[in-house]
C-alpha cells in the first residue's frame, strides 16, 4: 500500500531516466522515484569516482617509479632472453621417470586435498549459511571465520607455513591444499545453500524433522548439481596450485622446477614450465567437459 506519485512528477522522472539511460547509466527501481536533482548529483558522483580511479593509476605509476620509456622494447627483450637462454626446452628432462612420477604425485596430492577439503567444507558450509545454519549464535560465526581464515591466507603462504612446521614432503603440500580447498569450496557451497528455495525447508520443518534431516531432505537435493560442479572446479583449481606448492618445499612438479632453477638449468626450467602449462590446460579442459556432462546427467 504505497502512495502513488502524482502523474506529472512521474513524467518528469521518465524523461530524466531516459536521458541517463542514453548515457549508459543503469536504471535501478529507486531511480524512477528519485527527484531529478538527486539524479544529476548521482551523475556527478559517478564522474568523480572515475576521475579518482584514473588519478590513482597515474599516482601509482609515479610513486612506484615505473619507467614507462622502457616499456616499448620489453616484448623484444623478453623474446630474445627466451630464445637465447630457455630455447630449446630440455624435453628429455621432463620425459624422465622421476619427473613423470612427480606429475602423478601432483595429481594425487590435488585429488587427496580436494576430497578431504570437500568433506570438511560440507558441514562448514551448512553451519556458515545464513539461512540454514543450525546454530546462529555459535556455529555460524565460527564456521564463517574458519572459511574466511582459509581464504585470507594465500595457498602459497599456507604451503610455506606447513613446510616450516612439518618439513619437506607430500604432507605439507596436501595440508596446504586442503586448507585452500576448504576456503574455496566452503564459500561457494555456502552461497549455493543461501540461494535455495525455502519452501521445501518449511515443509520438512513442519513435519517435525530435525535440523540434520531438514538439511538432507530439503537442502541437499537442491544444491547437489551446483555442489558437484563446484567440486570438480575446485579440483582443477587445487591441481593448478599443486603444480607450484613443490616450489616451496612440498612435493610434486614444483619441486623439480625449483631444483632446476637453482642450478640455473634454464632449458630444464623451460621444459618444466611448459609441462605445467600443458597439464593445467588438460586438467581445465577435462574439468569443464566433466562438469558439462554431469550437469546434463543429473539435472
Amino acid at each position, binding site marked *: *500500500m504505497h502512495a502513488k506519485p502524482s502523474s506529472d512528477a512521474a513524467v518528469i522522472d521518465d524523461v530524466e531516466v531516459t536521458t541517463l539511460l542514453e548515457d549508459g547509466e543503469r536504471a535501478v527501481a529507486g531511480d524512477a522515484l528519485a527527484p531529478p536533482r538527486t539524479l544529476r548529483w548521482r551523475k556527478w558522483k559517478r564522474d568523480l569516482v572515475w576521475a579518482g580511479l584514473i588519478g590513482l593509476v597515474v599516482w601509482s605509476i609515479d610513486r612506484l617509479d615505473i619507467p614507462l620509456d622502457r616499456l616499448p622494447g620489453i616484448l623484444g627483450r623478453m623474446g630474445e632472453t627466451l630464445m637465447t637462454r630457455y630455447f630449446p626446452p630440455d624435453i628429455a628432462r621432463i620425459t624422465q621417470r622421476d619427473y613423470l612420477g612427480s606429475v602423478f604425485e601432483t595429481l594425487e596430492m590435488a585429488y587427496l586435498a580436494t576430497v578431504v577439503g570437500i568433506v570438511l567444507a560440507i558441514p562448514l558450509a551448512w553451519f556458515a549459511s545464513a539461512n540454514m545454519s543450525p546454530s546462529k549464535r555459535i556455529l555460524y560465526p565460527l564456521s564463517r571465520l574458519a572459511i574466511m581464515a582459509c581464504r585470507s591466507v594465500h595457498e602459497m603462504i599456507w604451503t610455506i607455513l606447513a613446510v616450516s612446521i612439518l618439513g619437506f614432503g607430500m604432507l605439507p603440500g596436501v595440508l596446504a591444499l586442503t586448507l585452500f580447498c576448504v576456503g574455496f569450496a566452503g564459500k561457494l557451497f555456502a552461497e549455493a545453500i543461501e540461494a535455495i528455495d525455502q*519452501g*521445501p525447508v*518449511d*515443509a*520438512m*520443518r*513442519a*513435519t*517435525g*524433522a*530435525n535440523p*540434520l*534431516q531438514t538439511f*538432507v*531432505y*530439503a537442502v541437499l*537435493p*537442491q544444491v*547437489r548439481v551446483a555442489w558437484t560442479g563446484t567440486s570438480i572446479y575446485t579440483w582443477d583449481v587445487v591441481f593448478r596450485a599443486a603444480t607450484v606448492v613443490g616450489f616451496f618445499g612440498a612435493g610434486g612438479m614444483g619441486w623439480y622446477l625449483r631444483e632446476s632453477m637453482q642450478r640455473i638449468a634454464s632449458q630444464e626450467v623451460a621444459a618444466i614450465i611448459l609441462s605445467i602449462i600443458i597439464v593445467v590446460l588438460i586438467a581445465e579442459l577435462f574439468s569443464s567437459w566433466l562438469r558439462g556432462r554431469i550437469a546434463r546427467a543429473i539435472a
Partner: protein
Amino acid sequence: MSNIALEVRDLCAGYGDRQILKNVSFTVSPDDFFAIIGPSGAGKSTLIRCVNRLVEPTGGSVRLNGEEILDIGQRALRLARRNIGMIFQEFNLIERLSVLDNVLAGRLGHTGTTRSLFRMFRREDIAQALTLLDRVGLTDHVHKRADRLSGGQRQRVGIARALMQNPRLLLVDEPTSALDPKIAREVMGLIREVARERRIPVLCNIHDVKLALDFCSHIIGLQDGVKKFEGRPADLNEKAMHDIYALEVL
C-alpha cells in the same frame, strides 16, 4: 476427549513495530473445517504459520488438544509438529525425489536420523504411503520424480505427505492459488473428504471466498491482523463482507 482440538487465544505476531496479528482468538473442534479469508496482507498466512511456529508469534497462546505449543523448547516443538500436517500454496515438494520419497518425508519426525539419512523408511510406513497415494489417485506415479507431475498432481502429493504424519490438525496455506479453477475445486474436495474420513480438523487460509463458502464449515475473516468475522458460511452476509474487505482498494 474434550471437544476442542485447537484453541488460539490472543495470538499476536509481528516484526519490531509492525504488528501483523492483533489478539486473534478462536477455537476449532475435531469436525471443523475452518477457512480464513481476508484481503492480501491481512495476516492469513502468518496466522497459519504461527500455529506450528514456522513464524514465531510474539504473544498469546496456541493449544493443540490441550497442550500449549508456544512456550515449549525446540525438541518438544518438533514432537508437537509431528501431529500437525501442513499443505502449502507452492506444494513445497522436494523436486528431485520420487513421489513416494516425498510422501515418506512426511514421516521424518517419526523416523530416526540414521534411518532417514539412508532413506530406509519402515516397511509399514512404505505400505501406508502407498495406500495414501492410492487414496489421492496417484498410484500410477509412485516412482516418478516430483517435478514431472502437473500442479494438481503435485498438490495431491502434498496432501498425502501431510496425511502421512497421521496428523491431529491440518494447516492448509492457500492450497489452490497455484492451480486452475477446476483442479482447485477437486483439490479442495479431496482435502475435505480425507479430513472427514480421519476426523482431522482443518485450518485453511484461502483468498477465494467462493471456495471458502462451498467447502468449509466455519469462516474467519481477517483484516489487517484483526479478526473481523467468525461464523458459518450462511452468516457471511454483505455487511460482514464489507467489514472484512473495507480497506481493500478495488
